[in-house]
């Protein structure tokens, strides 16, 4: 008995010792100890950093309008942190806040994760995708030609899906207005094909006429870095900013010359007068004589001074900067409804100085090959909505907003809201309940960047055609889906041929089409040097693989062609608007960069910045509440004195939540040239609340 007991004790001791040694060798108990230790040191509600190894994936950011190359650090396959990808030359490794914060933005509070349908009581409630798709297909099937689909301004294969669907339904496809579309229209008026891009990488001087090249322009992340690198300290490159506010674009320039918003065309044509007078005109356009006659009679220094207040020496200096290897960019802040005439006059000035389609000047960038059967959208959405609101056009029976928010992005907010209220069925894709989504009957949750595949094309302002591919790195949150996939499924239910080509197939087809375009993959090559004449690398055999690896396709190309200076059209430029005693303020509205979580200002009333002299003339003091009044609407604001704003102007940088209220106080007006409407220098008044 005793022997058995001893044997048992020996065996038990051996087993215990073995278990102890085995446990010590296994990582599990040590990991458990570490976890315990962490919990001891940190309160349980604090997040813990990932314990697994870190890896990285190279891709392209679809978070902003730019498309920077990014390197996403992942832990256990999940994105954790975004850094710049040094192998992608676009942006020269500079990143914008929205690129950096996109991993956090995936878990943004208020993000939609399921489809929502408005019930009989008027509340939005969750609904299954199958029911949402049935409803969407049924309404589209009923309305057919009376459907209006609104897509973002940025071109993409996803937008092509919407365009194809519209073409097959006979529906109207409208894109949100953008400065890129305005600039392309202005170039077309001169007989040029493509969208203007500005080659700051090779430029030796810069003149900005209202254009926000270092702030809100889509290509600004690259333009900022390019200019800051090129000018350096102590070099002779000069930059001049003419505009109503000392903002981000003025910050990078050597001089700020106050210029009233809406006067850019007059200033550009005044600059042309100096080019001519200094003998710096180098142009052979067919209407040169007519153009010179125009500027010599109507845009003399005295006339331009009386119209804009600009001293002649400022424009003379700007003319020299332009002629000595510079580039001129005219426009306004992105999304501010720039006038065709301003951009046309700016292009004409570049052309007159011989800076058109030259390295370091303005380059006309051709679009990427379009998918067959996808007609271009109409670009007068504002006119359509105004006509619907005013009863001049029948309201569409169904509306689909594809990641577009007209109430936050368009002026005439009161009319836009009225137009939306007249549409029978409204659906939208959105990642959160935007102002326009809140009015819809069906809200479909859209996947966000890092969750979806997206082609990111040439941002407006860049001087070379390019394409990057944003890859999905994780499964979309909840029931979120890519709008293109949903539209294709809706097309399938309607029996339309569009459904035959998946979104992925369209992306691959674009990649294949680009292989024959003569471009190259920017690997170890700076494409702007190729633009300036350096050797062009050989095209890649498998472009799709390169795009998936986060590399950039570039097609720098300069095509010379016959063009005019648009003299006949510019003759109609009437100059700055006359002063309006009822609405004495000119508004400059530039939406603030989005924050993942609002810092408490989102719900507060927006600040309006104006200088002390302007405030005094309106009997306003710093910090008081006031009412901003336009022709059709008004908004509550708080006055903030800022001497960086020129006389007679008010600058607003509202958060996204504050935009619809501000848009209600903004009025559009017909453009000087063409049928589109502009709202770049809309007038308002400010009264004490």
């Amino acid at each position, binding site marked *: 008995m005793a022997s058995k007991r001893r044997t048992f004790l020996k065996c038990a001791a051996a087993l215990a010792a073995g278990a102890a040694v085995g446990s010590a060798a296994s990582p599990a108990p040590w990991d458990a100890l570490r976890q315990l230790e962490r919990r001891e040191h*940190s*309160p349980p*509600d*604090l*997040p*813990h*950093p*990932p*314990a697994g190894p*870190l890896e990285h994936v190279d891709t392209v950011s679809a978070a902003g309008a730019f498309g920077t190359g990014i390197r996403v650090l992942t*832990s256990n396959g*999940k*994105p*954790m*942190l*975004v*850094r*710049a990808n040094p192998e992608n030359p676009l*942006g020269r*490794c*500079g*990143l*914008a*806040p929205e690129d*950096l*914060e996109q*991993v*956090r933005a*995936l*878990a*943004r509070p208020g993000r939609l994760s399921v489809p929502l349908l408005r019930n009989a009581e008027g509340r939005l409630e969750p609904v299954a995708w199958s029911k949402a798709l049935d409803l969407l297909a049924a309404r589209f099937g009923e309305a057919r030609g009376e459907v209006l689909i609104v897509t973002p301004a940025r071109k993409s294969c996803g937008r092509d899906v919407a365009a194809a669907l519209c073409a097959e339904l006979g529906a109207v496809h409208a894109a949100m207005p953008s400065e890129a579309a305005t600039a392309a229209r202005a170039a077309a008026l001169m007989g040029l094909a493509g969208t203007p891009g500005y080659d700051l990488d090779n430029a030796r001087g810069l003149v900005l006429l209202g254009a926000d090249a*270092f*702030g809100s322009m889509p290509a*600004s*992340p690259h333009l*900022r*870095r390019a*200019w*800051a*690198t090129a000018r350096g*300290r102590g070099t002779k490159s000069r930059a001049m900013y003419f505009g109503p506010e*000392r903002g*981000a674009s003025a*910050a*990078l320039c050597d001089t700020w010359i*106050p210029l009233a918003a809406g006067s850019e065309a007059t200033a550009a044509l005044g600059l042309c007068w100096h080019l001519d007078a200094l003998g710096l005109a180098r142009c052979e356009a067919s209407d040169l004589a007519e153009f010179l006659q125009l500027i010599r009679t109507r845009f003399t220094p005295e006339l331009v001074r009386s119209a804009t207040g600009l001293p002649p020496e400022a424009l003379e200096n700007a003319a020299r900067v332009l002629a000595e290897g510079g580039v001129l960019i005219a426009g306004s802040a992105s999304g501010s409804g720039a006038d065709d005439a301003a951009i046309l006059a700016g292009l004409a000035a570049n052309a007159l100085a011989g800076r058109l389609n030259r390295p370091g000047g303005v380059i006309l960038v051709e679009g990427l090959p379009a998918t067959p059967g996808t007609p271009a959208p109409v670009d007068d959405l504002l006119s359509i909505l105004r006509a619907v609101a005013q009863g001049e056009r029948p309201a569409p029976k169904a509306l689909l907003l594809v990641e577009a928010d007209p109430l936050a992005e368009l002026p005439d907010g009161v009319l836009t809201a009225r137009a939306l209220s007249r549409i029978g069925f409204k659906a939208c894709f959105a990642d959160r309940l935007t102002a326009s989504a809140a009015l819809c009957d069906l809200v479909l949750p859209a996947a966000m960047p890092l969750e979806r595949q997206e082609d990111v094309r040439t941002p407006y302002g860049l001087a070379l055609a390019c394409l990057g591919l944003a890859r999905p790195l994780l499964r979309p*949150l909840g029931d979120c889906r890519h709008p293109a996939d949903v539209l294709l499924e809706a097309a399938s239910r309607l029996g339309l041929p569009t459904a035959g080509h998946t979104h992925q197939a369209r992306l691959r087809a674009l990649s294949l089409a680009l292989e024959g375009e003569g471009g190259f993959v920017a690997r170890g090559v700076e494409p702007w040097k190729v633009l300036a004449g350096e050797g062009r690398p050989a095209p890649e055999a498998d472009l799709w693989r390169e795009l998936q690896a986060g590399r950039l396709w570039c097609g720098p190309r300069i095509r010379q062609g016959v063009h005019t200076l648009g003299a006949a059209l510019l003759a109609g430029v009437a100059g700055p608007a006359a002063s309006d005693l009822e609405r004495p303020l000119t508004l400059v509205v530039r939406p603030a960069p989005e924050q*993942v*979580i*609002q*810092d*408490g200002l989102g719900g507060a009333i927006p600040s309006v910045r104006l*200088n*002390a*002299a302007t405030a005094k003339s309106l009997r306003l003091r710093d910090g008081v509440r006031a009412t901003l009044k336009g022709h059709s609407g008004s908004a509550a604001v708080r006055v903030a004195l800022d*001497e*960086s*704003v*020129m*006389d007679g102007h008010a600058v607003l940088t509202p958060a996204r939540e504050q935009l619809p209220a501000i848009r209600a106080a903004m009025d559009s007006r017909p453009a000087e040239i063409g049928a589109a409407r502009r709202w770049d220098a809309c007038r308002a008044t400010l009264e004490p609340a």
Partner: protein
Amino acid sequence: MSAPVWGMVIDVDACTGCGACMAACGVENNIAPGSGMDWITLERRSNGRAFPDSDAAFLPRPCMHCANPPCVPVCPTGATRVSSLGGIVSQTTPQCIGCRSCVKACPYGVRRFNEREPVWPKGMDAAVTPFAAVRPKGVVEKCTFCVHRLIARGPEGYTTACAEACPTGAITFGDVSGISLGEDMFVILPQKGAKPRVAYVSWRSWLRGEK
């Protein structure tokens, strides 16, 4: 060759105030979104004159990592000290008792005291990095010059997240041991005697004169 001394030179004339430095710092160093605890901030300074004679500039303001830091001698627990890693002024949060003596001593106002626990919305904790501890309520935190990068990869190519992300390259980070203040270069509050290792460059005389 002498050991490097880490510091920054910020070109104020190239700063557009875009906020990329703040965003890059926040995501790298686990600053809770919307908490206002940013380790680098943007200060807008103006010359105080009326339009059209007005002028304004943005000054990115990280911890100055002073050579003679006023915050170090006042810390009762040794939670903050001048480290041997190129003079970086460290902050060891587990040793911090939250007395806030360093906050009072710092002439630059770049130290932050956690009044409350950081809030991470559901799902956003997936973006927490292993590079910096998540600081609890009751401790002081500040910029570390992204010292985790130096520890992980060594001095070769060492730079901070803010300098790396700056879209205009306004922030230059590196060894400042051989740098002397030039005509356009200045430091903030030199009269405090802290000898900051973050210097600024600007052609604006009014900005340099405001030291």
